[in-house]
């Protein structure tokens, strides 16, 4: 495809063919309760292309062995596969060095790692960790726990009624006691895209490092950690069309180097005596125990697949879906969309007057439409908008307008039942 665009400069790029993309995600072609599945819950977890499943299956069928220690051929192959995945992820994120990629279980573990290793070393009594009002619980609770332990304070930057971060307010809250700014790149509930370059610049002007929770950003657009300038970037493989159980913490080498280990065990040491332990270099210092090797292989395959994706086409398609879904849902009487930031990804949270989101979810399921209902692990955000829960349709490039139609039809059915 890249060959075609470079040699035929005058030809228009092929339009994004969603049906061709969908064929690579076999799970999507099924019926649920007799209706075609409309999977609108990719923010919870994305579906996986065949190539990811194949890579993991190939690994287990042909290469499985433990990494970093065997002298036999299988162990060499397993190590090469695992480290190869690290290199591919590093390249994909624009990291300067594969050593800056720490494999973890997911975004939650990545944030906990930073809280436990960097946080416990650098945050003391009276110090502050600055977050925002739209954080997922996984970017609140680790900092709350750290603050409780250290006598530190959690400071929260507010949002406006559209769900846009008030960046001026955030900047005002960066002070002499701020030890870290931990902000989501994209809100999992609202879809809001935060101005991360500006946040990083503001924090760095005060010498404060920045952690970005990229879990909801990476499925929607390419990110470049060096361009953003962030110090830490966390995301989960399973939201990036890869497997569950594997995730990534990117950290600048100097910061990772200076951090103490957070879990002790095998692989993270150079030598052990009862009197003295020498820790391994990064990233191994931060990866105790046998890692999720197959998961890393799967994530590497997902990254390979995404390297081949027509991102411009995929993003245009998602923008179209978001505009279409917003318009269709806005026609439904009593429906209110929560999160109307001008810069947002294709995530649409909504409430329907007189109907609890949980009941919406059950009725939509019978129409083959899979949405998430609840507080989406953002209870403070629910409070901010005065709702106990929302229903959320979250889209990926493999969704279609027909699936949005199924959602709208299903919501009509909800209104019939709750007439």
């Amino acid at each position, binding site marked *: 495809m890249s060959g075609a665009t470079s040699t035929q400069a005058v030809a228009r790029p092929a339009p994004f063919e969603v049906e061709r993309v969908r064929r690579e995600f076999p799970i999507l072609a099924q019926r649920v309760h007799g209706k075609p599945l409309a999977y609108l819950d990719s923010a919870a977890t994305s579906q996986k292309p065949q190539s990811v499943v194949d890579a993991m299956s190939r690994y287990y069928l042909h290469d499985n062995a433990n990494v970093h220690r065997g002298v036999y051929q299988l162990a060499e192959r397993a190590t090469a596969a695992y480290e190869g995945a690290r290199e591919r992820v590093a390249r994909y994120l624009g990291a300067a060095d594969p050593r800056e990629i720490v494999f973890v279980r997911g975004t939650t573990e990545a944030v906990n790692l930073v809280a436990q290793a960097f946080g416990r070393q650098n945050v003391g009594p009276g110090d502050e960790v600055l977050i925002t009002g739209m954080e997922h619980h996984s970017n609140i609770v680790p900092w709350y726990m750290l603050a409780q332990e250290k006598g530190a304070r959690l400071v929260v930057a507010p949002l406006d009624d559209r769900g846009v971060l008030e960046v001026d307010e955030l900047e005002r809250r960066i002070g002499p006691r701020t030890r870290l700014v931990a902000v989501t790149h994209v809100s999992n509930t609202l879809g809001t895209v935060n101005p991360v370059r500006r946040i990083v610049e503001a924090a760095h002007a005060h010498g404060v490092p920045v952690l970005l929770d990229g879990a909801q950003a990476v499925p929607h657009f390419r990110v470049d950690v060096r361009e953003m300038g962030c110090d830490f970037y966390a995301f989960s493989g399973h939201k990036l069309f890869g497997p569950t159980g594997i995730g990534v913490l990117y950290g600048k080498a100097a910061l990772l180097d200076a951090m103490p280990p957070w879990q002790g065990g095998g692989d993270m040491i150079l030598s052990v005596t009862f009197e003295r332990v020498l820790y391994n270099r990064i990233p191994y210092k931060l990866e105790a125990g046998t890692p999720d090797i197959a998961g890393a292989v799967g994530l590497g395959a997902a990254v390979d697949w995404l390297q081949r994706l027509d991102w411009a086409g995929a993003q245009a398609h998602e923008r179209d879906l978001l505009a279409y879904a917003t318009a269709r849902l806005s026609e439904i009487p009593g429906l209110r969309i929560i999160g109307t930031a001008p810069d947002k990804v294709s995530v649409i949270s909504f409430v329907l007057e*007189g109907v*609890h989101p949980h009941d919406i979810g*059950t*009725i939509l399921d*019978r129409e083959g439409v899979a949405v998430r*209902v*609840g507080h989406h692990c953002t209870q403070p955000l*629910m409070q901010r908008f005065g709702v*106990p829960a929302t229903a959320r349709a979250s889209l990926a490039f493999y969704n279609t307008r027909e699936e949005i139609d199924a959602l709208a039809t299903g919501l009509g059915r909800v209104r019939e*039942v709750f007439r």
Partner: protein
Amino acid sequence: MSELQDLYQEVILDHGRNPRNFRRIEKPTAEAEGLNPLCGDHYHVYLRLDGDRIADVSFEGAGCAISKASASLMTSTLKGKTVAEAKETFERFQRMVVEGDRAQAQSLGKLAVLKGVCDFPTRVKCASLVWHTLQSALKGEEKPVSTE
């Protein structure tokens, strides 16, 4: 679609919209809090006992149609019953909605309208939440009940 109609029967929708005994009891003998962290359902159940008889039982809170209807029907059914009768009713109710033993419906009176819940495994917790909360109140537990 019949399962859906079975779940959202008119009686359930009515109790969800206009819950009975939806109020606080001042100076209750016992009370308990129940929450479903998954969907954010959150209820308080209040109890006034006269000896071993439930003189009054009520609830407050927010949640889906199923959980609210279940609370409304539970409080209506149990008022005036003994604690032992309430426990027996709870067990039969659980057999109906969790195990799908529809035969229990015959002896459960108005509560029988909730029998369709067993076809929706993800909603069983909604129907059960206030019942577990009531059990907690009867046992005098202080920690909130959670369905997780």
